[in-house]
């Protein structure tokens, strides 16, 4: 079966832009319009956030968008319903990102089967540890052709990065600095030694840098050290502004790419 993430990295070598947004924010039914608008504006990969009540790894922006999305009525079944026909409209690589508990309650196997049926390409669950994934869930993800994407950080030892690289496919999510999401201190792109160290390891998977990438400057800097970068909180802030969704999305993506 075709793997859209693999194809993407084969076709495009640098400057990839991946965008994260919380499904159900700002409005419950915005999921599909946001995906289509992001594609229209030349984004390469989309991470669709599944909101959780207790997002440990996230800063205030994603916490608030999650709270609003849950109030709006977003759930995993609802999200799957919205995405049911998405492959009739776009072939952009789609990754679902969220926390383990809601996925566990839905049923991990059922979740993976449904994701495959819809045409989802990958999954990120930051609080599912590598060892537990390998022991309990890896075969289910693989049977359903889902890339399970893992995070590495500046504190992750080399041996563990290699272990993660060996169990994953798609890309390695390089967390830019010791931080929750949404930092705008600029610390995100300061850690060039770490980026270089990972880059020199010759991993099987390409690297994407995320956390704290929030404008044209930080995006460009991150792209110097990896295949591309991931933007989440800054995009969610743009979605929360007044005005039309289309306009907010296109001006934000243009501001990053130009």
């Amino acid at each position, binding site marked *: 079966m075709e793997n859209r993430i693999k194809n993407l990295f084969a076709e495009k070598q640098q400057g990839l832009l991946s965008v994260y947004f919380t499904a159900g924010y700002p409005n419950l039914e915005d999921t599909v319009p946001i995906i289509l608008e992001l594609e229209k504006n030349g984004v390469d990969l989309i991470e669709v956030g599944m909101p*959780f*009540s*207790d*997002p*440990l*790894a996230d*800063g*205030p922006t994603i*916490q608030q968008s999650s*709270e609003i999305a*849950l109030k709006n009525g977003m*759930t*995993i*079944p609802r999200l799957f319903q919205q995405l049911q026909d998405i492959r009739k409209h776009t072939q952009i690589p789609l990754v679902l990102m969220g*926390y*383990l*508990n*809601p*996925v*566990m*309650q*839905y049923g991990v196997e059922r979740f993976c089967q449904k994701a495959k049926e819809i045409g989802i390409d990958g999954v990120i669950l*930051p*609080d*599912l*540890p590598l*060892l*537990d994934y390998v022991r309990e869930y890896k075969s289910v993800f693989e049977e359903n052709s889902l890339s399970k994407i*893992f*995070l*590495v*950080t500046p*504190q*992750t*030892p080399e041996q*563990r990065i290699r272990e993660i690289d060996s169990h994953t496919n798609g890309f390695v999510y390089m*967390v830019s600095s*010791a*931080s*929750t999401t949404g930092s705008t201190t600029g610390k995100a792109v300061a850690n060039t030694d770490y980026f270089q160290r990972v880059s020199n390891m010759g991993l099987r998977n390409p690297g994407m840098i995320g956390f704290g990438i929030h404008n044209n400057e930080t995006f460009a800097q991150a792209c110097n050290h990896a295949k591309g970068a991931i933007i989440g909180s800054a995009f969610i802030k743009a979605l929360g502004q007044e005005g039309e969704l289309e306009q907010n999305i296109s001006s934000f993506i243009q501001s990053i790419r130009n």
Partner: protein
Amino acid sequence: MKYAVDDNGFYGKFGGAYVPEMLYPNVEELRQNYLKIMYEPAFQEELQGLLKDYVGRPTPLYFAKRLSEKYNTKIYLKREDLNHTGAHKINNTMGQILLAKRLGKKRIIAETGAGQHGVATATVCALMGLECIVYMGEVDIERQAPNVARMKMLGATVVPAISGSRTLKDATNEAIRDWINNPENTYYIIGSVVGPHPYPDMVTRFQAVISEEMMAQLQEKEGRDYPDYVVACVGGGSNAAGAFYHYLDRPEVKLVAVEAAGMGIDSGESAATSVLGKEGVIHGSRTLLMQTEDGQVVEPYSISAGLDYPGVGPLHAHLHQSGRAIFKSITDEEALQAVLELTKLEGIIPALESAHALAALDRIGAKPDEVVVLNLSGRGDKDLATYLKRFHFDGE
């Protein structure tokens, strides 16, 4: 030990370390070192010295004569309420602060609900001269003003948790986020037997001094080192874990865990996790968790802020599921009555948390010649405002 944690950090199917990669090195550092450091002779010598001379251990095992007459059985109270700072919490914070020092950490963070763990952490930080930051839900800051004042007086910075429901669960989230942002110089003192492995096991071991003393004290008073029942309240479950620990593998001892039913199990305002929870993951641990069918964490309710937690330690989830411990639930009203009863019969004003354990005394079926040890985890000073209001001692 059959009920001890396994090599992967699990109690049966509960436990583990479900943390984002950002926390992996911190948790791993602790996992590799905690047992080694805890059982070094020099560490034990320092800890035992402080527990004795500073905390005031051993705490008495008091035969409650009038309470025993009332319930027609032999009831002993393990007086954790007589510890410095007024509860069992300091057994754990004293252990962890010494561990943090040996790991070279300079900055201490903690979460707190009612403020008891926050005060116990601020106390040991003052004692050791370490920086202390306590996360506390904005709602709890408003309703627990005296403990906030104590923490500030002890030199701690109290940071309001303004996310989610702004209570204990959110304070814990904020403490974990702080740890993610400060992975190298910071040590997180968790206040209960919750969180990622090795915290549940480590906190249990620091609290196990409770049952260790019980054994010696019962030997002296009853001529045998075990009771027929150990009764303790459970929120996250640290005082119960400590009171049960040395009896876990002794089936002749019945373990009774008492949860907060709040306004009643079916009222929608409850914290009885063993009844209302389903298997899930919270704060890095797979355990029983109060949640919606979509897996969103539900905000619990109890009059007692210390029992107001949507999860329960993984050890207790396992004790519940295996049937090793008996779980009871007690409403706000029943706990308040138990406060009055102990005050009048024995001259001891208990904490609201401990009162839940007391209220379960008539439900355990102890016979006249049987021995019951009830872990009186804390004193009621912190709850005086509630007592004055509910018992109308405030002149109304």
